[in-house]
Each structure stands twice: as structure tokens, then as C-alpha cells.
């Protein structure tokens, strides 16, 4: 695979510690395109090893607007079905430039381990001293160990180590779009962290035309409905959360974007410092990043003040818990006071209701016109590597445009028919 690719698939056998590498077949890409299209195929190929398959979308890490997405594909311990969890912020581009297009993680390690994926090398390292650490401490420790603050990390927290169904795979210190308990799966494989860093290079088949088309699409996006808006407040308002922005506002520090994503929906809330502060905070952990409105929305509906809700979300992030699921479990147990909820998080477990794969509902269904449209849009986003929340917000990022970019970028015959076939397969 010559273009938009490192042409490598890593296969890591956790039991033996052996790493093998396969070339990424152009036939596979022409047929399955990328992202979840390929991770699903690799899952099937390696399913005897109960694999976790990581991969970026075909267009992830390029100048395609909102090309931030990586995907984790695995059998969910909660549903027993193959699911795809969205991984955004800077994880997608880091994986794309890591020297591997896809990483297949088979079996289970005999001892706590972490995977270190860097510049075309996949190493398995002991994680005895990381096991038991909260997510934030573990991320900091691995960055210090490797001497690089820009390492992107997928992590399993203490909740996962205890086998909680509510354990989420975390992206650095923050919640991901995993609603399927994949943190629990990671820990069951004795994988504490997957650390990724890369300074690779992606050749482009028709580079001038590709970039020109990207700029055209960006121009349309900048003139679109979401121009000039940002943050969880605007996102919540669009979803009909009354006064959500006002409820959050006293804590809002800044909002920023996932990689190359025009709408800055990641809002950082300050709990332990003045949110109006512009200089670097003297506090080491002044707050928490909010990447979607679901958890805060549930906690707000339970009557919590914004600061208390944010504190719960922060505690969940450290423990590696799906804050939405944790909040709902507490709600079902009649725990609605902030102190009760905080106390309940230690050792929390429960049944996560309402899950239906294969795509996480982290990208709100309320942004789509109907369930079928939402599902198709998720499939398209997960294949090409488009931020799923922004994919719902921006019809300007059309299937036609993405197919055209795929063909221009790879030089392969990727058509709407190709896409329809992969979407049909993923959506079932």
C-alpha cells in the first residue's frame, strides 16, 4: 500500500510477546477502504485470538476536515458482539503516523504489560509498576519513562483491573467514546496501556488535487451551520439541553478541537482554579475535559450542580470509568447526592442498559434526523476516520467528497459502490 499508509499491520501475540508484521494489502483497502472497514476484516481474520484491533481511518491525519478518528474494534464483554469504539482528540493522527496502519492484539499477556507503538516498532513492556495506578498517574508515568509528553495513550484504569463492566478505555486522561466496556477487555488481557507516538510520513497519490479538494470542503464547512460556534454549551443547546451552556459557563476555561476538527467541542472545565485564568495554572490538575454532553447531562438531570458533576466526571476519568454508565447505575440505585455518587465510584459495577452495536452512541443520535441516518453516518465516519460528532454536524463532508478524496489520496479505485458495500457489512 503506497499512499496514505505506512504499509504495515502489526500483529502482537500477548501470550508469547512476539510481534509480527504484515503488509497492508491494496486489495484489502480497495475492498474495505479503511478504519472500521478494515479493523472488522482483521478482527475476523484473527478472531481465534479474541483480538483488539486498532486502526485509523483511511483519511485520518490528512488535511481532510475532521480527520481525527481512530477506531478500536473488539468483542465487547458487555454485548458479546463485535463493536467499534471511537478514539479522537490526538489519538487518531498519532496512530496514523506511528508507522503502523493497523495493530492486532491477540490473546492475553501473562503479566501486566503495556504496548509501546513508536515509529514502526511495536514493543511489549512490563507494566507491573503501572498496574493499580489511576489513569492519570499511569499516563504521566509512561510519558516520563519514555521522555515524551506528547505520547498518546489508551488506558485501562483501576475499574478495569477490578473487572468492572463500566470500565472504559481512556484516551490520555480523558473519556473516550467507548461505551462497550473495552477497558475491561484490555485489563482482562493484562494490557494496562497502549502508548503511541510517531513522526511518520504519508505520501499522497494526487497531492495537489487532494489538498485542493480538502480546502474546498473546508470552505463549505466554514460557511455552514456550525460556523462561529464552539464548546459543549453550543453542542448541548443543539441537542435541546435547556440552559446547559449557562449551567456549565461558570466552570468553562477553554474549548478546543480534536485533530483538524473545525468544531471545538472539547471543553475544559476548571474546578480548582479560576476559569478565567489565561496563564498556566499553578495547579497540577485544575479540572477535567468534557468531550461529550451525555455524562454531564445525566448528572445534571439528577440534580447535581455543574461543579459536582464535573468532579464526578473527573473521578470517573481517573478510575477509567464510563461516566455515563456510572451515573446511570448510581441513579438506578437511588444515589443522587454528589457525595453519595463519589463514594459509590470505588468498586462500582453494574449492568449497562441500552447498548446496541456496532457503533458507540457517544456521538449523539439527536444530531441525526433518524436512527438509520445516524448509523450510516457513523459507518462512513468510522471508515474514513472522520470525527463522528462532527460528521453528524457537517453534511458538507459528503460521502461523495470522501470517496473522491479516498481515490485521489490512494490512487485506488474506491467508489460509492465500494463504500456502500462496506457500510452494509458494518451496519448489518
Amino acid at each position, binding site marked *: 500500500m503506497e499512499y496514505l499508509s505506512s504499509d504495515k499491520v502489526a500483529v502482537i501475540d500477548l501470550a508469547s510477546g512476539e510481534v509480527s508484521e504484515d503488509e497492508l494489502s491494496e486489495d484489502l483497502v480497495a475492498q474495505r477502504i479503511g478504519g472500521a472497514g478494515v479493523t472488522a476484516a482483521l478482527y475476523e481474520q484473527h478472531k481465534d485470538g479474541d483480538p483488539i484491533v486498532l486502526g485509523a481511518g483511511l483519511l485520518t491525519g490528512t488535511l481532510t476536515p475532521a480527520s481525527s478518528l481512530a477506531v478500536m474494534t473488539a468483542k465487547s464483554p458487555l454485548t458479546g458482539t463485535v463493536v467499534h469504539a471511537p478514539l479522537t482528540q490526538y489519538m487518531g493522527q498519532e496512530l496514523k503516523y506511528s508507522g503502523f496502519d493497523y495493530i492486532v492484539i491477540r490473546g492475553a499477556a501473562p503479566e501486566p504489560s503495556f504496548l509501546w507503538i513508536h515509529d514502526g516498532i511495536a514493543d511489549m513492556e512490563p507494566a507491573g509498576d503501572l498496574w493499580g495506578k489511576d489513569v492519570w498517574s499511569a499516563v504521566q508515568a509512561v510519558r516520563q519513562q519514555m521522555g515524551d509528553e506528547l505520547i498518546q495513550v489508551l488506558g485501562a484504569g483501576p475499574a478495569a483491573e477490578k473487572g468492572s463492566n463500566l470500565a472504559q478505555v481512556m484516551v490520555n486522561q480523558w473519556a473516550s467514546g467507548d461505551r462497550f466496556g473495552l477497558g475491561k477487555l484490555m485489563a482482562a488481557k493484562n494490557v494496562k496501556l497502549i502508548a503511541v507516538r510517531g513522526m511518520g510520513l504519508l505520501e499522497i497519490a494526487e497531492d495537489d488535487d487532494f489538498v485542493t479538494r480538502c480546502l474546498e470542503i473546508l470552505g463549505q464547512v466554514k460557511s455552514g451551520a456550525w460556523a462561529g460556534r*464552539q464548546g459543549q454549551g453550543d453542542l448541548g443547546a443543539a441537542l435541546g439541553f435547556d440552559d446547559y451552556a449557562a449551567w456549565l459557563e461558570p466552570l468553562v476555561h477553554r474549548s478546543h478541537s480534536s485533530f483538524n476538527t473545525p468544531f*471545538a467541542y472539547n471543553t475544559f472545565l476548571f474546578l480548582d482554579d479560576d476559569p478565567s485564568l*489565561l496563564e498556566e495554572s499553578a495547579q497540577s490538575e485544575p479540572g477535567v475535559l468534557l468531550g461529550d454532553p451525555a455524562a454531564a447531562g445525566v448528572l445534571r438531570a439528577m440534580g447535581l450542580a455543574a461543579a459536582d458533576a464535573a468532579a464526578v466526571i473527573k473521578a470517573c476519568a481517573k478510575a477509567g470509568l464510563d461516566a455515563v454508565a456510572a451515573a446511570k447505575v448510581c441513579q438506578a440505585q437511588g444515589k443522587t447526592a454528589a457525595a453519595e455518587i463519589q463514594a459509590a465510584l470505588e468498586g462500582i459495577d453494574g449492568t449497562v442498559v441500552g447498548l446496541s452495536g456496532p457503533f458507540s452512541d457517544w456521538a449523539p443520535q439527536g444530531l441525526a434526523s433518524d436512527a438509520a441516518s445516524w448509523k450510516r453516518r457513523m459507518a462512513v465516519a468510522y471508515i474514513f476516520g472522520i470525527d463522528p460528532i462532527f460528521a453528524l454536524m457537517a453534511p458538507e463532508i459528503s460521502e461523495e467528497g470522501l470517496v473522491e478524496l479516498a481515490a485521489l489520496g490512494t490512487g485506488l479505485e474506491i467508489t460509492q459502490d465500494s463504500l456502500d458495500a462496506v457500510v452494509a457489512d458494518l451496519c448489518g
Partner: protein
Amino acid sequence: MAIRIDPEKCTACMACELACGYHRDDAFALISSCVVVYRARESKDYLGVLLKEEEELVIARPEGLEIKRIGATDEEQSSGGGDASAKPMLLREACDLCEDREEGPLCLQVCPVDAIYQD
């Protein structure tokens, strides 16, 4: 007309960093870019942008824009963004305003929030 960055508008999306890398390498890459998003203080939500010019370093911090002469003794100027594996800032090529592009600097064009301008 030098490149300047409005730190209040910047959302740290890295589009500028990728665009500059593309301009230099005719491929998608980040290592050659002369504009870099500073994101080593993630847990504090302290993000900014560094731009290397021929004789100056443009530092767009949240608290404001600062322009420093390259060669002054300053720990931050030499730090390169707090990461071991990326190329230190001072070893990168200086901004050439995409002089070979008819449309001008690509970073301006790709910024989704118009945080980059020429002054």
C-alpha cells in the same frame, strides 16, 4: 507580511502544523513544520502555538502573543515544546510564507477558525 496567530481564537487543532509539513515535504508529515501546537501541558489545559521565523520565534500563548529574538538565553525557546521525539523548534526551517504558492501561506487557508493572519 509575517504570520501571526491569535491565541484566543486558536483551538489547537494542528491543521496549521500539518499544512506546513505538507508544504515542506509534499506529503503529510509533522516533523518538518515550522509551526507547532504546544500541547505538553494537556492536564492543565494550557495550549499554544510556536512559529519559527528566520530570526524570531513567535509564541502564541493563551495570555498573549510574544515575539522573541532567536539566540536570547531562554529555556522555553530551546525546549521545542516539551517532547523528546519531535524535532526541536530551533532546528526546524524558518517560515517562508509558502513563497512558492500562488495562494500564499497554506496555514492561513487551513485554519478552521481564522486564528492565523498576516501582519
